């Protein structure tokens, strides 16, 4: 293949890159790379990560770089994984890993180590001159590759860019001149880097960026590269419109890379806010860098309103009512009063010392199980019932799987004197006869849904059909932070108190932030509520544990983010369990509350930008944790919450392996104990074989009846 000669230092570098690649190709063929790439989880969305949560935000691409041709050896990097983790803790949005060996001292081993250590997107930074390298990047788990326009023909650039996008990755397309910017735009680059290092002289001229920035294609994410010594250059780039800045040397040499990145992000955001003419650039900057209180309707590419026109007017009405209510002290006071005097908030934060012995770290439980009705669900139903009242609606409808949300909605309807209809899959009404009775005792009508798979998703479909015909009198009280806008942001709003309380309580009880927070994720409302308190603390690792059912290899699970792919269902673009044709696939879990084939769109976003790690937990792992908490702490958890407990055990054991038992013992994980397990007693007794043969309880347990 012909190679573009650049007449610069690139030519010699590329010669070496080709020789090294030839050696690797001898070892690992393209077919093998394809196989490895296919086994990798879907690439993360570096474009969303670099766009950031707000127009003023400036993101940092932090580079793991051992040496460079211009400066020689930079620093001894004994452990690239640890350095990358420090970058992530400081709030880096992407980690760049140099893999070129001869001049930069990098390797694919560095890439592997970093990939395993961080959850944010990873850039494989190398001199891409062959498709083989792009496959190689994906096979090693990279989410981004570097394409240097100067080193490629137009045809190569287009071909490489297409392959990168086909593999679900993004490319940082690096330019140096107006001509190269034009070529990058023509090829369809979505992330365009401007490298201010002159390739002939290797000098850096920061002002070049300002001149070139004006030429960049509209809509592309603009990245400034090279020349950063401190916050001053970051501010300069940002004031010329950079959305992200790639920083290497300044971080590698920094004593505290985490704090340096935090400072860079603040300086960049202040400069962008200043450029836009914000009255209080520093305040605007703090807000811009924040992932908290994301307003929707979109979370990156996710969310929106994929809904029939017939429902748009009522969604508009709800959005409007919610926005006004949030700003109305009377509303917020009433919501807080109900939370305090009716739901029993704030819920406790309990250290679980005997349970923790099995995890090898300190474990604190956020006790949503102590709320009225036994789970976090009450927060959301009280909030939405208040909104329904404001809109003059007299009837509440809801979907329910296990019955938790149905019971909570029936409770609120009783309290507010409203009519209540709960849609429940016919299958679930049989499995949950006692919860049906509970709802009926509270005055609700339960309608068994006999369409489709007769489970939660069909109950949602049926509730939507009811709503289309009843919008004038009826509020659809959706039970999770999913569906069309405004539901995801609104449901989260009512659960934000979980995270806010937890953060204050852990600071109060231990004097510091936790190292990790764990929650179970079905639709994801308790998880988004507790994560919310910690989203802007990049050093706090966030874990969402999905229902792995019989195991993710069996196909019988509800691990939507771990194994699904983006699509639209129930009004939102989000990760879904679906077949090739886009038909929803049935989910499976021992926990009815996690048995949902989609997930809230904000979780999809937090996954794609790498802020939260989502992992599956199997039925067996969850039930083991259920029993362990019951026997070590005297607390019977909901099976849903047991997934978070099982996940916390994994996190603790990983720390013990990586850091040794002494260091792990100092670590803290906060677990969202989202609900209590009274409803799950029969299922658990059956699972553990505790019921006598032929007893009526055993029959109930076999049907999944939850007493």
């Amino acid at each position, binding site marked *: 293949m012909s190679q573009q000669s650049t007449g610069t230092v690139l030519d010699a570098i590329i010669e070496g890159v080709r020789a090294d690649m030839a050696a690797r190709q001898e070892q690992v063929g393209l077919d093998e790379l394809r196989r490895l790439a296919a086994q990798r989880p879907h690439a993360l969305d570096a474009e969303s990560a670099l766009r950031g949560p707000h127009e003023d935000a400036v993101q940092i691409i932090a580079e793991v770089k051992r040496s460079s041709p211009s400066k020689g050896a930079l620093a001894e990097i004994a452990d690239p994984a640890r350095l990358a983790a420090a970058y992530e803790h400081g709030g880096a949005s992407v980690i760049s890993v140099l893999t070129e060996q001869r001049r930069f001292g990098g390797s694919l081993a560095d890439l592997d180590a970093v990939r395993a250590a961080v959850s944010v997107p990873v850039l494989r930074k190398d001199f891409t001159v062959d498709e083989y390298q792009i496959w190689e990047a994906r096979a090693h788990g990279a989410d981004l590759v570097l394409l240097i326009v100067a080193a490629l023909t137009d045809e190569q650039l287009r071909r490489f860019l297409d392959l990168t996008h086909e593999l679900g990755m993004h490319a940082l397309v690096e330019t140096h001149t107006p001509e190269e910017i034009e070529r990058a735009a023509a090829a369809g680059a979505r992330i365009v880097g401007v490298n201010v290092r002159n390739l002939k002289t290797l000098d850096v001229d920061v002002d070049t960026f300002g001149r070139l920035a004006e030429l960049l294609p509209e809509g592309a994410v603009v990245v400034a590269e090279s020349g950063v010594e401190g916050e001053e250059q970051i501010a300069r780039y940002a004031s010329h419109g950079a959305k992200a800045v790639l920083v290497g040397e300044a971080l590698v040499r920094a004593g505290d890379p985490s704090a340096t990145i935090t400072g860079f992000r603040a300086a960049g955001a202040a400069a962008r806010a200043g450029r836009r003419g914000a009255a209080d650039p520093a305040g605007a900057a703090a807000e811009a860098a924040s992932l908290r209180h994301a307003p929707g309707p979109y979370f990156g590419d996710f969310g929106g309103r994929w809904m029939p026109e017939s429902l748009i007017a009522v969604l508009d009405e709800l959005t409007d009512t919610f926005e006004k209510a949030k700003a109305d002290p009377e509303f917020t006071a009433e919501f807080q009063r109900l939370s305090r005097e009716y739901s029993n908030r704030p819920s406790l934060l309990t250290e679980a010392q005997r349970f923790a012995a099995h995890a090898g770290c300190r474990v604190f439980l956020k006790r949503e199980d102590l709320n009225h009705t036994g789970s976090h669900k009450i927060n959301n139903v009280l909030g939405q019932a208040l909104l329904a009242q404001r809109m003059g609606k007299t009837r509440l409808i809801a979907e329910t799987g296990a019955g938790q949300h149905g019971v909570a909605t029936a409770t609120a309807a009783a309290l507010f004197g409203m009519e209540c209809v709960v849609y429940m899959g016919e299958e679930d009404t049989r499995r949950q006869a006692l919860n049906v009775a509970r709802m009926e005792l509270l005055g609700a009508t339960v309608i068994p849904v006999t369409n*489709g798979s007769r489970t939660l998703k069909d109950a949602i479909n049926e509730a939507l059909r009811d709503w289309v015909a009843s919008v004038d009198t009826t509020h659809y009280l959706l039970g999770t932070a999913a569906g069309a806008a405004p539901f995801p942001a609104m449901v989260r709003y009512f659960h934000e108190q979980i995270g806010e309380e937890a953060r204050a309580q852990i600071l109060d009880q231990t004097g510091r932030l936790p190292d990790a927070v764990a929650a179970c994720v079905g639709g994801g409302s308790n998880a988004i509520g507790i994560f919310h308190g910690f989203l802007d603390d990049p050093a706090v690792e966030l874990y969402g544990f999905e229902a792995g059912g019989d195991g993710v290899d069996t196909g019988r699970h509800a691990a939507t983010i771990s194994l699904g792919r983006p*699509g639209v269902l129930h009004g939102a673009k989000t990760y879904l369990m679906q077949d090739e044709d886009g038909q929803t696939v049935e989910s499976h879990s021992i926990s009815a509350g996690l048995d949902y084939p989609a997930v809230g769109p904000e979780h999809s976003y937090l996954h794609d930008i790498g802020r939260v790690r989502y992992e599956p937990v199997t039925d067996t792992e969850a039930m083991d944790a259920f029993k362990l908490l019951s026997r070590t702490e005297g607390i019977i958890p909901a099976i849903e919450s047991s997934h978070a407990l099982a996940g916390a055990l994994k996190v603790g054991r990983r720390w013990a392996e990586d850091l040794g038992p002494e260091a792990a013992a100092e670590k803290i994980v906060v677990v969202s104990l989202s609900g209590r397990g009274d409803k799950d007693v029969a299922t658990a007794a059956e699972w553990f074989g505790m019921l006598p043969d032929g007893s009526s309880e055993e029959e109930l347990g076999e049907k999944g009846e939850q007493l």
Partner: protein
Amino acid sequence: MTTTRNETTGPDLASRILPPGLRANPDSPLAARIAECRAQGRPALVGYLPAGFPTVEESIEAAVALGTNGADVIEIGIPYSDPVMDGPVIQHATTTALANGFRVADVFRVVRAVAERTDAVPVVMTYWNPVLQMGVDTFARRLAEAGGAGIITPDLIPDEASEWFAASQEHGLDRIFLVAPSSSRERLDLVVKAASGFVYAVSVMGVTGARDAVSDVAEQLVADTRAAGAQNVCVGLGVSRREHVEEIGAYADGVIVGTALVKALADGGPEAVGALARELSGRA
């Protein structure tokens, strides 16, 4: 439901949402057919049948029977796992089609058969996720190749349709969006500007299904949609008899029949579909 439309303030929705230069397809066979019907002094008869019900082959024969017995436009539905806008009859049909192994690509065979064997104009009616998963551009290209004229999108509003705007223009397809009795004036304006071929007016707040009487909010909705600039407005949801066709035909450009045809197919096969089409079109 009130018949006065809510006024909203703020910047014009249509200019915020629609891409500059968005045009209606100038060679739309759909618009041409509706104009032809108007010239003949009658409403266009628009019939819906799901692809793959009860099997792909039988759905082809049913669609052809519909097209050769008086339907001007045929909506071929794509069976979908979560049809939130459909009542029990259509749900049952599409669930059956899926259980019988329907695949999304089969829809193009049905469209092609209608295009080749009848004079009716075929369009596809589909929930959006199946299109999204095939790739919006790929779906549009294959639909155009099969002879389809456009897509009716019951759960895609113009606000989320940027990919579809590009693909429909690229492949010369019509974008049939819906308006509802609950739509504000501003949204009517948006939908009318976004749509091409015709605007689908939902006659009642509810899901699909035959009704004894067609609601009188439909006439007001059609008038308001025309006032927003629509050339062609067709009315659907609840139509099952010739008298409905005549009643709606007095004020709308086309009358859409779905559930009644699906029920006829379920009960009496393609022949029954043909017979109902003759009745609805006034030929029987």
